[in-house]
């Protein structure tokens, strides 16, 4: 009994030795911007040991909510704030300032064993509406299409809904998962699946399709030829005070190192023209 108490106390003391951070920055929001936020956070914390940055990735909507009620300093979002979010912000005396940190495209991905190489935006829409339900209607084998979408708290989902579905309802048998990584994982292990992810999440375990004959790469996104492209945002409450840690963090995307990080993750730096 005494030994347990001693052990507990010593663990608590040990816990207090680690982590000597004073200032904190809380980031909340999109899972698409998440890798960028995490990489920025790690890089920044390395060069400024007195700052503790925590990142949660629970969806763009949650990021907006958190910045409005003051529980985070930076909201990472893959869509702009909606009208009611702006209203709520102004109502709580929060002035949202939007920084565009990177550009992104939404790629349609399939299992690498799927022979289909390209689709049009309209075909994607028909598939997600449920009207095209078999790969043979797209030139592939006779297998049912398993459609996977992001859960509705996602900015990626909102962009997809806006640019591809154009407001029509996704079919009921669509499976929903919680993040870009989850879509990629489902697609790479399910031969008949079709999903969508940000281009930073394409790797050699999935195959990206050409949409309207344009393949999703940083170049085509930057030039605007890829039809489903969008900016990625970080939102702060009013412009951060010059010279403060928050200011330096949020303007990291303008520095060379920041852009290298963005490129290494797979997204498109804003200034890469």
């Amino acid at each position: 009994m005494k030994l347990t108490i001693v052990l507990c106390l010593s663990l608590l003391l040990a816990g207090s030795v680690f982590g000597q951070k004073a200032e904190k920055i809380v980031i909340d929001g999109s899972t698409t911007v998440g890798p960028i936020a995490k990489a920025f956070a790690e890089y920044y914390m390395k060069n400024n040991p007195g700052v503790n940055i925590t990142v949660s990735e629970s969806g763009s909507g949650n990021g907006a909510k958190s910045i409005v009620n003051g529980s985070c300093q930076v909201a990472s979002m893959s869509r702009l704030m909606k009208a009611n979010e702006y209203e709520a912000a102004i109502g709580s005396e929060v002035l949202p300032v939007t920084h565009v940190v990177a550009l992104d495209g939404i790629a349609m991905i399939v299992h690498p064993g799927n022979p289909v190489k390209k689709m049009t935006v309209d075909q994607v829409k028909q598939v997600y509406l449920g009207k095209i339900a078999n790969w043979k209607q797209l030139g592939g084998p006779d297998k049912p299409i398993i459609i996977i979408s992001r859960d509705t708290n996602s900015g990626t989902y909102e962009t997809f809904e806006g640019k591809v579905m154009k407001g029509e309802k996704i079919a009921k048998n669509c499976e929903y998962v919680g993040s870009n990584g989850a879509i990629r994982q489902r697609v790479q292990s399910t031969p008949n699946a079709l999903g969508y992810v940000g281009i930073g999440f394409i790797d050699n375990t999935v195959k990206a399709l050409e949409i309207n004959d344009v393949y999703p790469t940083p170049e085509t996104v930057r030039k605007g030829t890829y039809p489903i492209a969008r900016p990625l945002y970080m939102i702060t409450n009013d412009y951060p005070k010059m010279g403060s840690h928050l200011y330096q963090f949020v303007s990291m995307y303008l520095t060379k190192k920041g852009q290298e990080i963005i490129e290494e993750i797979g997204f498109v730096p804003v200034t890469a023209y």
Partner: protein
Amino acid sequence: MKEKQNTLILSKGASRWRRLASFCLQGTLLVVTSLSLVAVLFIIYYIARDAWPFFQLNGLKEFFTSTHWYPSRHPEEFGALSIFVGSGLVTLTSILIAVPLGIAAAICLSDILPFHVRQMVKPVIEILAAIPSVAFGFFALVVFAPLLQSNGGTFLTIAFLIMAFPVSTIGLMIISKLLADRFKKDAKAVRIGAFLLLAAPVAWGMIRVCHILIRIPINSGTNTLNVSVILAVMALPTIVSVAEDALQSAGRELREGSYALGATRAETIFKVVIPAAGSGIIAAVILGVMRSIGETMVVWMASGNAAQIPDPWFNILQPVRTLTATIAGDMGEADQVTGSARYHVLFAMALCLLLFSFLSNLISEWIVNRSRKKLGLK
């Protein structure tokens, strides 16, 4: 069960001061204990408080009868019927798997197996009960789902055989016994003959079913079947331990009386012990149901989260969405600042879950109390 004697009530001769102190003390203890009552009330109040605006805005009809779940469209649609059906389907399937296995295991543990085997099995059950649900969910997503996808047919066939083989054997034995009793001739020979005669078509039928099953492709590994099997494994320890307690509390006298009257072991078990422990077994099943319906992580990770009613409704190879997974997953977008319907609908779902668990609790307590009264406060 002996009535607990309350030996700590003060005698009449104690001084007033002492009585006052004791009263205050008991009062404080009562207050602390009633914290649980307070907690339950608060939970009901706060969840209902945040759920009420949804019903005010949208009314009951759409929520309970429509199958269109599109909370982020404009206009939003909050038809949660398919989600309720999803929860129900998952619970039903997992109970169908878990209850026979659990009750059989409980019977084995309490009546059939020798003592030292029991001592070995109990820790296994406790360990299974203690494993965190997220570990089960991880297993379901990372190991089980790909297994189902690549070897779907094989898995279904094996599961079918595991279920059907003992059931058919026992069924055939019972039928052949009945037939033998009918004919009253050389019982044993007739029994064996009938058994073999009936076994042939049954075996052929099973082989046909296996052939069909092995060809079924499972397109998506995250579906009802996956979740139900894992939930059944999670609910089993609860069912087994509560059922076993119930069977044990039926008492040795009952069993000994039955043996004294000349009943065989099987007859004792099926005709005496189980009916006596009947209420306890039902309570165990209800507890299993409550566990399955309230589980979040496993269904969130492995059920596919498609808000649809599978077609046909018993097609367990299709993805579904449950109430708990919707609450956990959708909370991200919930916009409490603007008081949107999206936030409140999640609380409405939580309210439904809460009410269901209350009801189940009440029913199980009522059943147990009623049978206790019947058996004379046994």
